[in-house]
C-alpha cells in the first residue's frame, strides 16, 4: 500500500474489523452531521435578552475588555473619538467597510481620520463590527469577508468593536447559528474574549502579547 491515505484508512478499518461502513451505519452518521444537534448548553446561556446583555458586559469586563453602552448608532463616532482622546491615542482609525460601520456619521468628527481596509503594521487603532456578542463568557464573534478583513482584529494595538445590543445571544451555538444562516462558512470565525495576553514569563499575566493590548466594545442600544 503506497497510497498513504489508503494506508491510514485501511489500518483503521482493519482494526475495527470491517471495510467501509455499512449503508445504515453511514446513514446514521450522515444524519448526525446534517442535523448537527446541540449537546449540553450551560443554563447561564439562556435568559431574557436584557439579562443576557448585562451578563455579556459583565464577563467581557472580567476578561479585561472595556465596554461602553450608548443609546444610538449616531453616538458611535463621538464615542470612538472620546476613547482615543482619553487614552492618548492618535486620531486615526482603520475600519471595516461593511454598512454597519460605513453608514455611521463619521464626518461629524472632524478631527478623526478614517481609512478602510486590511490592517497595516502602522495602524494603531482598528474599528470593526461583530456578528454577535455571546453572553455565556463575554465573547465576541467576528467573521472574515469582503468588507471585514481578519487582520484588523489582531494587528493594531487597540481594537474597538461596535456591536448592536440586539445581536447579543446566549451561547456559542446561538452565534454559530447566525453564521450558518448567512450561507457558506466564512474563511475565518474569530471568537474573541478580551485583549491579547500571555503568562509565559514567570506565570505573570501581561496584556498585549501579540494581538491588541486594549479591547474596547461600544454596545449600541437603539
Amino acid at each position, binding site marked *: 500500500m503506497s497510497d498513504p491515505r489508503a494506508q491510514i484508512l485501511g489500518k483503521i478499518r482493519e482494526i475495527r474489523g470491517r471495510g467501509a461502513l455499512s449503508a445504515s451505519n453511514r446513514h446514521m452518521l450522515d444524519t448526525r452531521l446534517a442535523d448537527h444537534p446541540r449537546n449540553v448548553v450551560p443554563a447561564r446561556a439562556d435568559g431574557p435578552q436584557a439579562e443576557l446583555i448585562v451578563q455579556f458586559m459583565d464577563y467581557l469586563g472580567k476578561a479585561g475588555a472595556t465596554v461602553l453602552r450608548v443609546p444610538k448608532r449616531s453616538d458611535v463616532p463621538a464615542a470612538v473619538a472620546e476613547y482615543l482622546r482619553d487614552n492618548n491615542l492618535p486620531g486615526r482609525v482603520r475600519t471595516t467597510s461593511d454598512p454597519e460601520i460605513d453608514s455611521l456619521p463619521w464626518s461629524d468628527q472632524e478631527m478623526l481620520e478614517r481609512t478602510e481596509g486590511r490592517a497595516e503594521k502602522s495602524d494603531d487603532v482598528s474599528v470593526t463590527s461583530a456578528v454577535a456578542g455571546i453572553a455565556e463568557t463575554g465573547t465576541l464573534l467576528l467573521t*472574515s469577508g469582503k468588507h471585514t478583513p481578519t487582520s484588523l482584529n489582531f494587528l493594531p494595538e487597540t481594537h474597538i468593536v461596535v456591536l448592536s445590543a440586539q445581536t447579543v445571544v446566549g451561547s*456559542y451555538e446561538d452565534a454559530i447559528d447566525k453564521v450558518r444562516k448567512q450561507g457558506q*462558512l466564512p474563511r475565518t470565525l474569530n471568537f474573541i474574549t478580551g485583549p491579547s495576553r*500571555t503568562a509565559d*514569563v514567570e*506565570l505573570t499575566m501581561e496584556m498585549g*502579547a*501579540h494581538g491588541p493590548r486594549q479591547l474596547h466594545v461600544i454596545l449600541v442600544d437603539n
Partner: protein
Amino acid sequence: MDATAKSFKDQAKDGLENATLQDALGKLGFGFPLLRQMAADGLPEFDALRDQGRDIKNHVLEHLDYYLERFEEQVTGHGGQVHWCPTDGDARDAILKICQEARAKTVTKGKSMVTEEIAINAHLEAHGIKAIETDLGEYIIQLRNEPPSHIVGPAIHLNKEQIAGTFRSHHKELDPDRSLEEVPALVREAREVLRQKYIDADVGITGANFLVAETGSSIIVTNEGNGDLSQSLPRIHIVVASIEKVVPTLEDACTFLRLLARSATGQEFSAYTTFSTGPKRPDDPDGPEQYHVILLDNGRSDLLGTEFQDVLRCIRCGACMNHCPVYTSVGGHAYGSVYPGPIGSVLTPALAGIDQSHHLPNASTFCGKCEEVCPMRIPLPKMMRYWRERAFDQGQDPVAARWALAFWATAARWPALYHFGANVMTRLLHFMGKREGHLVRLPFAGGWTRHRDFPTPERATFQSQWRKRL
C-alpha cells in the same frame, strides 16, 4: 522524537536541584489547580460536559475513518488540500515540499505540540528555511535551543533574568542599555521583534486543537494572538494535526471548547478561539491563498482497539501535569520527551517505544489526581499500569527487581509460606531496630534508607495479632 526518556532518573535529579525551576513549579502547582477548581465550580454543567466530551471522542474513535474522509471532503470543497502522513517523516517531507514549491524563506509558527513531535524546525532549517516560533514561551526556548517543559507554558522553567539575558544576546540590533528588568518590557520587546516576522513570512504553520468533519475547519485556541497572525498574514497556511483531533460538528467543538480553557488555565474562555476553513475567499481582502492540512498518524492508529485507545481522547489541556505531584516536583524536562507529565508517561511509550521510556510510567505515585481532573476522563493511572506490565514482560526492569517480584509472586501463591516468611521477616526487623525505634540501613533497600529511616515494625504481623485477638 528526541527521546532522552531513558535518563529520567538523572534528569529528575537535575530538576530537583534547580532552584529556579522549583520556584516556578511551586507557583504552577498551587495556582493552576486553584484556578481550574474555581472555573469548574463556576459552571454547574462542567461534569456533564466532561461525560459528553468523553462520549463524543469515543464515538469518533469508533468511526475515525468516516470522520477523516468527511473532513477531507470538506477541506477540498473549500479549496484546501489534505496531506495524509502515516509517519513523522512523511509529515516533514510534505511540509518541506509545500514550503519549497512556494520558494519560502521564512515560516512563522503558532504554538503546536505536534510540530515538536515531528521536529519540523530542524528539518526546515537543514533545507535553508527559517522557522520562527511566535508564541512567547516557544520563542524564548527556541532562542535558547531548549525543548518545552510544559505543553501550555513551554518556558515556565525560566525566570525573567534568564529571559532578559537571552534577549540581550539575540536582539543585538537593539539598544544595549535598554531596561529589561520587568515582565512588561520583555513582552513588549518580543512583540516588536516578532511583528515584522509575521509580515515577512511566506508560510504560517499552526497546530489544531480540533478539526471539524462537518465543515473542514481547523480550530486553534490561544491567548496571545500569535497563532492568528501566523495563519492570516502569510500567503500559505499549513495546519499540522494528528488524526484523533477530528470532531463531528461545530456544536461538538463547542462542548470541547467549554472544557479546554477551564481545565488548562482556569479561564472561562481563552482570548482567541479561531475557526479557519479553506484559503481566503476571492473577495476577502486578507487571508492565505493556500490552505493545507497535514493529517498525521505517527503511531496513533496502533492504539485503536487496544487498552491504550482512551489516551487518544486527550485535548492537551495540561491539567494532568499541573496536578501531578511528580511533575510539579521534577519539571517537564526530566521526562525527556515532547509530552511530559502523566499524559506523556502514557503517550511517550506509545510513540517512542516502551524500551526507550520504561521509567515514565513508573514516575507516578498513583494518587489518581490526573484522572480526577482530566476533562476527557482518561484513566491515566490504569494505563501506566498497563505499560509497567508490558515493560516487565519485555524484561525492561533491572534483574534485581525482576527476581524480587518473581520471588514475591511465588510466595503470594502459597499463603502458608507467605505468612511464615512475613512472620520471620517481621520478627527479624523488630529485633534489629528495637533499640532505636527505626532502621538506618536495610539490605536490598538502600534506595529507601539512603534518604530516610525505616520505621521498626511491631513484634508480630497484623494477621497474627488479629488471630490472637479472636
